[in-house]
């Protein structure tokens, strides 16, 4: 039980439960069938977007092009089906491949050139968004096959659980396994912790960086496809609003931006917190402008808290080392 308390995510879980109950006390509709469904739908793609950023944070970098990749894949996915009559599974496959290729581009250039991922992904953000706009000329693709639309709307039997969330849950689980139980995952954390130490142990920088970015691109692509299922059309501005939440969730979940420390479960809880807050703002008719301020303050607080913990850990380590 004591170990449970110490886990990063335990505190977050309490926050989620408490805030959920608090809101429900004031507005019972919050826990209604339909509202839970709506919350889970938002969580579904937010989760994947957060994980796409999280894995890059793990290696101590940032991926500004997450939204741009998502948008590009979203329109490619819908465009292929509408214009070229490509079947759904093949379109999904092509979409995911596009995402991975975008990720590969990011990772390769970052790894080989040694330039900060921030500026590389800033450039590719414009490149991918540019391709997106160039192809669509800002017009959405409306004709999505019925199967896709149904997938976006369906629920599991009589529960409020949407089909949409099944895949993200599976992916979250796989990411947890990847980061905690596989060699590559642990290499990434080591690399994020200290590039020099990692290289000394024999970890290949390029492999780590490229793999991380490819996974990030894959996840961004998945999120883009899910959003198309949900919105029932493919519009070029999918992904425009992803930047802030993609950082907010992992950071709230305890991630250190310098790298080396991320927690999949905590990130997932971070997503829940962001989603609940966004909804609460609508429910309580709080000025929508307030959302921006809120997210910004949350990020700052989360970062400060993380920094403080880092600092304490450093201090503890120094004490132990000096003995």
């Amino acid at each position: 039980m004591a170990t449970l308390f110490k886990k990063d995510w335990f505190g977050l879980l309490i926050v989620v439960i408490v805030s959920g109950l608090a809101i429900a006390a004031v507005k019972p509709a919050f826990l209604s069938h339909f509202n839970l469904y709506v919350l889970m739908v938002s969580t579904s793609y937010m989760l994947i977007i957060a994980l796409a950023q999280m894995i890059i944070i793990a290696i101590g970098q940032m991926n500004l092009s997450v939204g741009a990749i998502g948008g590009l894949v979203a329109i490619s996915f819908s465009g292929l089906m509408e214009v070229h009559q490509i079947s759904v599974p093949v379109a999904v496959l092509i979409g995911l491949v596009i995402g991975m290729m975008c990720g590969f581009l990011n990772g390769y250039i970052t790894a080989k050139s040694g330039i900060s991922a921030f500026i590389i992904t800033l450039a590719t953000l414009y490149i991918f968004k540019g391709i997106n706009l160039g192809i669509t000329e800002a017009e959405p693709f409306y004709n999505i096959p019925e199967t896709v639309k149904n997938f976006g709307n369906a629920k599991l039997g009589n529960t409020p659980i949407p089909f949409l969330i099944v895949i993200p849950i599976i992916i979250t689980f796989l990411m947890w396994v990847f980061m905690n139980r596989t060699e590559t995952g642990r290499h990434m954390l080591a690399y994020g912790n200290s590039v020099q130490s990692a290289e000394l142990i024999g970890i290949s920088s390029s492999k780590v960086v490229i793999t991380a970015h490819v996974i990030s691109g894959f996840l961004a692509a998945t999120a883009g496809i899910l959003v198309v299922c949900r919105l029932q059309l493919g519009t070029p501005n999918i992904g425009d609003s992803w930047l802030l939440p993609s950082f907010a969730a992992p950071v709230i979940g305890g991630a250190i931006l310098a790298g080396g420390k991320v927690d999949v479960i905590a990130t997932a809880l971070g997503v829940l917190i962001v989603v609940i807050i966004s909804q609460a703002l609508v429910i309580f008719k709080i000025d929508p402008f307030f959302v921006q301020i809120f997210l910004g303050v949350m990020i700052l607080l989360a970062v400060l808290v993380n920094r403080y913990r880092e600092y304490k850990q450093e201090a503890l380590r120094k004490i132990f080392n000096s003995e």
Partner: protein
Amino acid sequence: MNKKIPNFIFTNQFGLLCLVLIFIVIFSTVTDGFTSRFNIFALSRVIAIDIMIGLAMMVVILTGGLNLALGAIGVCAAMFGGWCMEVLEIPIIPSIFLMLGMGSFLGWINGFITVKTGVHSFIVTLATMSIYFGFMTMLTEAEAFRRLPELFTDFGSAKLFNKYISPLLLVSVATCFVLFYVFRFTDIGRKLIAAGANPEAAELSGISVNTMFIYCHILSGFLGALAAILLTTRIGAAIPSMAGQLGMDWLLPAFLAPVIGGTLLSGGKLSVFGTMLGAVLVTLLTNGLYLLDVGEFWIRFFLGIILLLAVLLDRTREYFTLKNVIVS
């Protein structure tokens, strides 16, 4: 050996100048309308604003950091100024000072938080970007200030030199000269550069690196507010969406100009005139692409590619310079 390095640096700005001239020639001959009075005037205004935005980011890049909140600071300063001029009816000159003060203040907050917490300026400014923008939107309720003093807005449409150039450009170029002087010839300027180039060494030689970094952020906010003033006179109103959602529209020009101009992202090296030429080059290219009927939608794509090429080129140049140093 020492002769090689000055030549190389010289090459960067000189190279840019050559590129600018080459493109001017190409576009003048290939398109019609590039050299028209209307077009050159329009260009002069966009260049003026982009130069200022580039300079504002440049001084933060000097510290090895980033200022994502630049656009947000700009909009806040502009809206604050609009409020002063329209609602409080404060005359133009004091209002301008107030706007610059607001920008500097917001920049100071960024610098202070960055330095005191040790958190990277990327995340600090990512957070402050939304906080500043959110407060601004909340306080103004997203309403623009549209009845600004005529003298102020006329400045934005004024035409000099036989209607070819906007006075905005003169303001920006003058700022370039001032900054160049400060960084090259004043004590504080050299300290700022030293702090960015090698913080540990600077600290050892008695420079308070933290203070220097805060100064950089303040300066960034100041220049951002100045850019916003120019943009407001151009538009003729103080509009909350002038820099896009959360001020993000300024990010591309803010990075492109300094990076193309030779300012290193790792900090410690900047080039004022490089930034100026970088802004000119990017604006020229964008304008040329529009005129060549490339399709408005592909412009972003090209800008992204240009940024990528610019950083890669920068890196290669760094690599070769280093090689030369070691080899010789």
